[in-house]
């Protein structure tokens, strides 16, 4: 297992190099000088020279990249250009918020999607299945910002059940965290519910049609044991893959949803930084996203081997 982890980690290195290259290149894409981009056309010469120095723009590109990677590798993401804060401090504050939102969203997707998928699979092509399948088709196609606005208007403003804006993490108390998380988490889980339902349905239909199911029936096992133990276990590889990918897509969904709910997470930070051309923050957040996605993929890969005895 350790050796496996080693080889997998080694395989991540090229991806990581490519990612850092792209992220570093962000500020050099486009015709304008990064310092001018940051300060605007009317900035004074001295101010521009100052920012050029601060961003290290006077060195050759390779040197700049090398220095940047060297700093980033030690956890130093630089300082924000707009705020007088370290990027790592900003991310350190925003990450738990986004993580709470993503994990809640994924949990809702899984808790609703898996039973719905199983229900649809055991009633394949009958009324329940058709209802679930078309419901999930609608689920994926609802735009998140629209759903967010509708829910804010109805649940938060009209009924006053939960706050319409802002956020609270677990450190602010469980009740408070729950009231702030439930609505945005439901919004980011929406397409996830649909995706999980559809994938679980497909995997379960396949598992329930496997010849081994006939053997289990011939042994006299109850149908619910066959469905919930054997078929579900045979679908585990699909489920783990879907849930892993779901973490990634849900992370993407938080960008818009955090803005609509005014949640101070990574998504709001990156949008704010993008409009202010605060490159160190953009780079820091994007790099964090990349690391999360790579970590998830690594976990999926290792989980496969634990789940499926045939992969060794």
């Amino acid at each position, binding site marked *: 297992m350790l050796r496996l982890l080693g080889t997998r980690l080694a395989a991540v290195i090229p991806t990581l190099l490519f990612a850092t290259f792209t992220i570093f290149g962000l500020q050099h894409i486009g015709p304008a000088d990064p310092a001018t981009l940051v300060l605007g056309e009317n900035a004074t010469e001295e101010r521009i020279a100052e920012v050029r120095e601060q961003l290290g723009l006077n060195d050759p590109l390779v040197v700049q990249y090398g220095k940047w990677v060297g700093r980033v590798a030690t956890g130093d993401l630089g300082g924000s250009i707009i705020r007088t804060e370290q990027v790592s401090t900003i991310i350190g504050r925003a990450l738990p918020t986004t993580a709470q939102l993503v994990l809640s969203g994924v949990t809702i997707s899984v808790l609703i999607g898996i039973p719905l998928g199983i229900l649809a699979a055991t009633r394949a092509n009958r009324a329940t299945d058709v209802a679930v399948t078309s419901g999930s088709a609608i689920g994926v196609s609802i735009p998140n910002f629209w759903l967010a606005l509708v829910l804010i208007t109805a649940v938060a403003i009209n009924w006053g059940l939960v706050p319409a804006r802002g956020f609270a993490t677990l450190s602010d108390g469980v009740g408070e965290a729950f009231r702030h998380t439930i609505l945005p988490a439901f919004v980011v889980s929406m397409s996830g519910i649909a995706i999980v339902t559809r994938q679980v349905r497909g995997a379960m239909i396949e598992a329930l049609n*496997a*010849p081994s199911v006939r053997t*289990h029936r*011939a*042994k*006299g*096992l109850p149908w619910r044991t066959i469905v919930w133990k054997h078929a579900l*276990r045979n679908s585990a590889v699909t489920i783990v893959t879907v849930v892993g990918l779901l973490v990634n897509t849900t992370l993407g969904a938080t960008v818009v949803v955090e803005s609509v709910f005014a949640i101070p997470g990574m998504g709001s930070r990156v949008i704010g930084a993008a409009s202010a051309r605060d490159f160190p923050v953009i780079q820091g957040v994007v790099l964090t996203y990349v690391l999360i996605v790579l970590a998830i993929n690594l976990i999926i890969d290792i989980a496969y081997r634990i789940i499926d*005895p*045939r992969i060794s």
Partner: protein
Amino acid sequence: MIGEPLLEVRDLSITFRTPAGVAQAVTGSSFTIAPGERVGMVGESGSGKSLTGLSLLGLLPPAAEVSGEVLLDGRNLLATPERELRAVRGREVSMIFQEPMTALDPVFTVGQQISATFRAHRGVGRAEAKRRAIDLLGEVGIPEPARRFREYPHQLSGGMRQRAMIAMALVCEPRLLVADEPTTALDVTIQAQVLELIAQLSRDRGTAVLLITHDLGVVAETCDRVLTMYAGQIVERCSTDDALEFPRHPYTSGLLAAIPRPGVAAEDLRSIPGRVPSPVDLPPGCRFGPRCDHHQPRCDEAQELTEAAPGRWVRCCRHAELDLPGAVEMIG
């Protein structure tokens, strides 16, 4: 046959509605199996053997429309609710299948799968079920049963997998074992070993067996009686010796000519010319008629299974006048 039969199948018919019409997969099948008796069921692909076997566990596909009776100790399994059938399956009647790799669950260990059957029916604890499973793995000739218990199906060879399937089927000491082509997927040398194992376990434990195969040679070595199936009908039902020595139905005789045997090269084996009719488009008269060398105009009437001699039933109007070659003449 002496005494009450363990199993009695009466006038079993199985049909499917398909886009091409009604498929008559099994038509008017009747036979019995006595306790401890080994009965072979032979026939070409599509003759309805597997469906007949599945019906003995009440395991027909949901789309199947079925009539007739499958009586186990006088109780009709076709009219037994699913809940009660579960207590029959794996405990009274077990089944093993052709392809042990796919028939076993790939993500559970062999031991878990055997124990699960025992626990489901006997309600015993994990430890006791494990002990029982390891004993049985040993009895079916698997070396190092305690180690094999922990292994997954893909870690076993084909022959070992089928032995594990047999252990799983016999763990609750059922009275009837349905073996659907249990050796077809195995190497020839392994085939003989597995057949011998089934026969020996059946003798030692008094387990009745319905052995389904397309190879009459397999039946010859293992079974007391044989049912020959053609296009969903039993065309001959008699003792194995009778079938081998003096087959009364031209189809049985044709199958005998196709048995691989020493001294006859594979290409010299006479396979029956022509194809099995489609179950949606069966000939109105003798279903074997279009392929039969002995066909006459009166064969175009529906053929009944009639008693040609005590214990010998044949579905052929010409059975008394034909002198068909058996296995003995062919070897001689």
